[in-house]
C-alpha cells in the first residue's frame, strides 16, 4: 500500500513499479509531490461504463477500502502521464502482437491527503480471442455431424423413394414387380409390407380376371359364330340383314370389352416410339377409309411406350373425331410432356357429360343409333391406355364448336 509512505517514498515506489515489468516500454509512470499533472486535466469518462471498467473499479474499491477514491475510464487524449501496469500473461501475448489495437484505460486512485496516482492498463478490444484450434475443432465437428446426418436422412428417405417408384410402376408393367425390400424404420417396414401385400392381391385379382375373360371370349365367340351361320341360312333378306347388324355389334362389343379388360395385361414391351411416324400411319389408314386427318407440329424425339397401345389410343380418339366431326385435326406440342390434341368440328358434348363418356359402355343419347355405331368403350380404352403410360386424357368443348381431346404423355426422366 502506498498510503503509509511519505510522498518521496511513494514516488520511488511508483518509479520502481513502472520499471519492473519487461513489457512496459510505453510506461510514462511518474509520481511527484502535490497533485499529479494528470489530475489538472478533466478526467474523461464515458457516460456508460463498460463491464470491464465497473468490475475493475468495484474490485479496487473493495481492496483499497473507503479511504481511497477510485475512478476507471478510457484514457483521454492527449494521454496524461500515468503508471503503466503490465497486462496479465494471457493478454500480454495478444497485446504484443497487435499493440496498435490495444485499448487504454486510466485508473485514478485518490489518496486521503489529496494526491492521486493514475495507472494505465491496456486491453485488447472485443474480448479475448478464441484460439484457432477451437474454431477448427468446431468446424470438424460440424463436418462429422453433417456426414452422420446425411447418412441418417438417406436411410430414412431411400425406402420412401423405393416405395414411390414401386407404386408408380404398379400396373404399368405386365409382370408383377419384385417385392419391395422391407428395411428402415419400423413405420417404413410396415408401409413396405402393406404395399407388398396390396401388390400381391392386385396381381391375383388381375390374373383371375384375365383367365375369366379368356374363357368368356372363347365361350361367346362360339355361339356368335353359330348364330351367324344360322342367320345366313334364313331366306328373309331384311331379317337377315337386321340380325347380321346385331351380330356385328355384339362381336364388336365382345372384342372391345376384351381389349379393355386385357388392357394392362397384354405383355407388350415398351420401346422408343416415333410418334410422328405413328400418327402419319394412322392418317394414311383413315385416308384409305375416306377420313380426313390433318397433323400440325411434331414430336421432337421418340417417346418410350407400348407401340400398339399408343396406336390404339390415338386411333380411338381420331376415329371419334372423324365419326362425329367429319374430320380430325391433330396438334402436337412437345416439351416436358408430349401433348397431342385431337380436335373435331362436330356438335361437341354437353359439359356435364364430359367425364361420363369415359365410363365403360356409356354412350351419349345422340350416338345411340345404328348409324353412329360404337360400343361406348373407345374413350374408356383410350384413357386406360393413357393412364397406363402415366399420362392423362381430357375432353373439352371448343369455343367455336367441336370437341378437343387432350392426350398428355409424360416423357420418362
Amino acid at each position, binding site marked *: *500500500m502506498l498510503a503509509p509512505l511519505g510522498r518521496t517514498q511513494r514516488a520511488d515506489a511508483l518509479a520502481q*513499479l513502472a520499471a519492473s515489468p519487461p513489457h512496459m516500454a510505453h510506461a510514462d509512470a511518474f509520481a511527484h509531490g502535490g497533485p499529479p499533472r494528470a489530475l489538472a486535466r478533466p478526467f474523461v469518462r464515458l457516460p456508460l461504463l463498460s*463491464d*470491464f471498467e465497473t*468490475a*475493475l473499479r468495484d*474490485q*479496487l474499491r473493495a*481492496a*483499497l477500502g473507503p479511504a481511497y477514491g477510485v475512478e476507471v475510464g478510457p484514457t483521454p487524449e492527449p494521454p496524461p502521464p500515468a503508471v503503466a*501496469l503490465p*497486462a*496479465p500473461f*494471457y*493478454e500480454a501475448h495478444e497485446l504484443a502482437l497487435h499493440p496498435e489495437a490495444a485499448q487504454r484505460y486510466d*485508473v485514478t*486512485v485518490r489518496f486521503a491527503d489529496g494526491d492521486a496516482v493514475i*495507472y494505465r*492498463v491496456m*486491453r485488447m478490444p472485443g*474480448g*479475448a480471442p*478464441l484460439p484457432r484450434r*477451437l*474454431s477448427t475443432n*468446431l468446424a470438424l*465437428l*460440424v463436418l462429422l*455431424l*453433417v456426414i452422420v*446426418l*446425411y447418412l*441418417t*436422412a*438417406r436411410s*430414412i*428417405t431411400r425406402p*420412401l423413394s423405393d416405395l414411390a417408384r414401386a407404386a408408380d410402376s404398379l400396373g404399368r408393367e405386365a409382370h408383377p414387380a419384385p417385392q419391395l425390400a422391407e428395411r428402415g424404420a419400423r413405420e417404413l417396414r410396415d408401409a413396405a409390407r402393406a404395399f407388398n401385400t396390396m401388390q400381391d392381391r392386385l396381381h391375383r385379382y388381375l390374373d383371375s380376371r384375365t383367365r375369366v375373360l379368356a374363357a368368356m371370349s372363347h365361350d361367346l365367340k362360339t355361339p356368335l359364330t353359330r348364330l351367324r351361320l344360322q342367320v345366313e341360312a334364313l331366306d328373309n333378306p331384311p331379317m337377315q340383314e337386321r340380325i347380321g347388324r346385331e351380330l356385328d355389334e355384339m362381336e364388336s362389343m365382345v372384342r372391345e370389352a376384351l381389349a379393355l379388360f386385357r388392357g394392362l395385361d397384354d405383355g407388350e414391351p415398351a420401346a422408343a416410339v416415333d410418334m410422328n411416324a405413328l400418327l402419319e400411319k394412322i392418317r394414311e389408314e383413315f385416308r384409305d377409309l375416306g377420313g380426313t386427318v390433318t397433323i400440325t407440329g411434331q414430336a421432337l424425339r421418340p417417346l418410350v411406350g407400348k407401340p400398339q397401345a399408343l396406336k390404339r389410343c390415338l386411333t380411338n380418339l381420331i376415329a371419334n373425331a372423324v365419326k362425329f366431326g367429319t374430320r380430325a385435326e391433330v396438334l402436337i406440342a412437345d416439351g416436358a410432356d408430349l401433348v397431342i390434341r385431337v380436335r373435331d368440328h362436330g356438335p361437341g358434348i354437353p359439359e356435364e357429360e364430359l367425364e361420363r363418356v369415359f365410363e365403360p359402355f356409356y354412350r351419349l343419347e345422340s350416338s345411340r343409333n345404328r348409324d353412329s355405331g360404337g360400343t361406348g368403350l373407345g374413350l374408356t380404352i383410350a384413357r386406360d391406355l393413357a393412364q397406363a403410360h402415366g399420362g392423362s386424357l381430357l375432353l373439352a368443348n371448343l369455343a367455336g364448336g367441336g370437341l378437343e381431346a387432350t392426350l398428355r404423355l409424360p416423357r420418362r426422366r
Partner: protein
Amino acid sequence: MRLSLWPQSLFGRLLAASVLAVVLAQAVALLLIAQEREHFVRQGSVRDWTRRIA
C-alpha cells in the same frame, strides 16, 4: 418452375434442417465459449491489476 432455396425433397429438407440446426448450435456454442473466456480473462486481469495497484 419456382426456384427456392428450401429443398423440395424430403431428403433435402431433412438434411437442410439438420445441418441448419447443427450450425446454429455450433454458433451459439462458440458465442457462449467466447463469452465465458472473455469473462474469465477479464476477471483474471481485474484481479491481477487490483493486486498490483493495491
